[in-house]
């Protein structure tokens, strides 16, 4: 089959099984867009800003586990995509971004709409390619998908000069079934000796903790994790990225850990004697001050990326490998008899943990006459029966969503953790809804974040993706305001949101339904109404208590046992008991 470069790109996407491509046209990709025009297998989703294309593709990847695909033009199209590429990179999300480039002959001449895309994205991609020959397109794209989806996943950029997609030049096309790259062989199986040793240490623990992160989701290892946790009967905590890996409603789950983690999760981490980190990368939002982090614990760390291990925290037993495979091997050892835990100590440990739970760190004032953001999320959880996909923007609302919506399944909680990109939520909701049209998708956002990609309301209309926007409108960049309250004597420098648009009218202007509420008793009916409007995008503008803060909070430089709580409490740690 003889095809032009543009046709080859499209054919590669078909052969790769790509369902959606999120993009925006421009000069350098016109040949490519012409090739897209003549087919219907790969559905193109026209966003309203290239950043949204990357977020939507990223969310599609997060909910399905398949790579997200993006197509942007050179220059401004390419640079607009960078924030979304960096967002995917920080959270290890598989994505292939095809960017048009100026014709080969003028590269380097400051040609119209030329930027060095390979250079600009180098620090925020897993890998990138500049395609130099028409004959190389198919193999390069195969490599791009291979690199993006294997090992520790990540975004890959393929920059294609315009002349290479010229419709008048054709070559024979064949999509390689497999690629092998001598310089890229990600680990899969963990070292059996290490796994055995790790299990030995884990079984000997008196105060064990399972600290599981986004790697569990990426590895599709939720089932194995649940099996391990329930077989051992140990407490488990998740990072923000791990939520849903283990069911949040199960009694062994002690909540999220870290800066805004629960009292019980952080106290347990601090007092633990053996921690097994599973696909978690000891992020600074999790560890707090490193010298004070988990002072009594021996640490086992399972991660597919050797560079994640011992990067910030010293580890006693490293295991490099894919979580699913490592946990399977561990479970087999347990089944074959290596299974005696220290029952007496572990039971005392649970007694201690349950005491910490009694602090009820997530309680809030339920009598308030103002709408509490926590209440909204609780109601959202109930109305959707915990079954929705929740995307989020960045700020207090994100933390409230993570704390009060109990995720029982993986790939339901879609947020930007590593980069913390405001503007992520709405395009992400669209990407998720396209992937699963029959699931409820809600975007929890704030009045500041939503304005960063608000134009995507048009995309939602065009492609009929009825998502529900839950705008926790506190008239502040709440997260910024909270830090200013705690650390800058409440000098609210430029964190007040003035000139907020009328979101109801705005929603209506985009052809959607807008609802505004400001009383607690309106929350439940408004949510029910929004979800009852099955085929409409609904913008629910909820005027919440503007003074509300996220608790617990570990302020920077503090240890896990030094949390700021909503209610002052007095529960001295009983080290004897535990």
């Amino acid at each position, binding site marked *: 089959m003889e095809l032009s470069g543009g046709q080859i790109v499209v054919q590669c996407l078909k052969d790769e099984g790509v369902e959606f491509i999120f993009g925006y046209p421009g000069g350098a990709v016109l040949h490519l867009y012409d090739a897209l025009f003549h087919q219907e297998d790969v559905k193109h989703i026209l966003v309203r800003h290239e950043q949204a294309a990357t977020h939507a593709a990223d969310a599609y990847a997060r909910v399905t586990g398949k790579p997200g695909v993006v197509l942007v033009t050179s220059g401004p199209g390419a640079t607009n995509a960078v924030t979304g590429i960096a967002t995917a990179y920080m959270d290890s999300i598989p994505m292939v971004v095809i960017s048009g480039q100026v014709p080969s002959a003028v590269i380097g001449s400051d040609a119209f709409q030329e930027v060095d895309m*390979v*250079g600009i994205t*180098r*620090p925020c991609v*897993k*890998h990138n390619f*500049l395609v130099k020959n028409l004959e190389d397109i198919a193999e390069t794209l195969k490599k791009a998908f291979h*690199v993006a989806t294997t090992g520790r996943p990540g975004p890959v950029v393929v920059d294609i000069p315009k002349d290479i997609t010229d419709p008048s030049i054709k070559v024979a096309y064949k999509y390689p079934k497999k690629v092998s*790259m*001598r*310089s*890229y062989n990600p680990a899969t199986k963990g070292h059996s000796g290490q796994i055995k040793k790790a299990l030995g240490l884990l079984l000997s623990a008196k105060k064990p903790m399972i600290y599981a992160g986004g790697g569990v989701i990426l590895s599709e290892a939720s089932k194995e994790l649940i099996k391990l946790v329930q077989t051992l009967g140990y407490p488990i905590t998740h990072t923000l990225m791990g939520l849903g890996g283990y069911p949040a409603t199960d009694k062994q789950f002690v909540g999220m850990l870290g800066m805004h983690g629960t009292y019980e999760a952080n106290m347990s981490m601090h007092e633990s004697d053996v921690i097994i980190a599973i696909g978690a990368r000891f992020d600074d939002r999790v560890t707090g001050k490193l010298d004070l982090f988990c002072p009594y614990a021996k640490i086992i760390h399972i991660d597919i*990326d*050797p*560079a994640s291990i*011992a*990067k910030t925290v010293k580890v006693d037993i490293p295991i490099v490998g894919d979580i699913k495979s490592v946990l399977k091997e561990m479970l087999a050892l347990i089944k074959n008899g290596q299974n005696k835990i220290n029952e007496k100590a572990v039971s005392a440990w649970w007694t201690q943990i349950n005491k910490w739970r009694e602090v009820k760190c997530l309680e809030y004032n339920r009598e308030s006459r103002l709408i509490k953001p926590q209440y909204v999320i609780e109601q959202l959880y109930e109305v959707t029966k915990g079954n929705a996909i929740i995307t989020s923007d960045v700020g207090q609302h994100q933390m409230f969503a993570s704390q009060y919506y109990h995720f029982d399944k993986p790939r339901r909680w879609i947020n930007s953790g590593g980069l913390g990109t405001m503007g992520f939520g709405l395009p992400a909701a669209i990407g998720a809804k396209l992937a699963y049209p029959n699931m409820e998708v809600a975007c929890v956002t704030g009045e500041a974040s939503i304005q960063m990609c608000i134009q995507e309301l048009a995309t939602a209309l065009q492609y009929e993706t009825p998502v529900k926007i839950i705008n926790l409108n506190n008239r502040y960049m709440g997260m910024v305001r909270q830090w200013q309250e705690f650390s800058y004597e409440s000098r609210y420098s430029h964190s007040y949101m003035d000139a907020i648009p009328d979101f109801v009218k705005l929603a209506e202007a985009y052809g959607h339904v807008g609802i505004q509420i400001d009383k607690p008793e309106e929350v439940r009916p408004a949510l029910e109404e929004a979800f009852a409007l099955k085929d409409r995008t609904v913008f629910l503008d909820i005027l919440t208590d503007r003074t509300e803060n996220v608790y617990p909070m570990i302020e920077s430089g503090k240890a896990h046992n030094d949390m700021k709580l909503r209610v002052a409490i007095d529960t001295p740690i009983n080290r004897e008991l535990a």
Partner: protein
Amino acid sequence: MRHIISILIENEAGALSRVAGLFTARGYNIESLTVAMTEDETLSRMTLVTDGTDDVIEQITKQLNKLIDVVKLIDLEEAVHIERELMMVKVRTSRESREEIKRTADIFRGKIIDVTVNTYVIEMTGTSEKLDSFLAAIDEDSIIEVVRSGATGISRGEKGLHL
């Protein structure tokens, strides 16, 4: 501690900038960096001299290995190895100093490869430390120009860095 890291990397445009970019992005030191094609034209060999605690060196080697273009690398510090750097020094000479400079160069096994009425160019190879010593041994004011290649290295014995 100083480490010499030898890297086999795909001989592709941009490979060098990936390595250099990694060092600036993550705040690692580069003392020197040399790169040239190997006998296999699809591969380049890079020698990188860096400095850091054991933890930092561990991260450096892991992060380098993580670069898709890096095929293989070794930290020469972990093996018995030979280190060589090439230096050329242009010095100003006078009738009185000429003999003295030549003698010092001889002691360091340097060669005089260019001579004019009032200059010498001395070529010298050795460990970076030896080259430093030579520079310290001659009159600083006489030095017009120094050019150094940066260190390269190879492990001793049968073991080697190859595919």
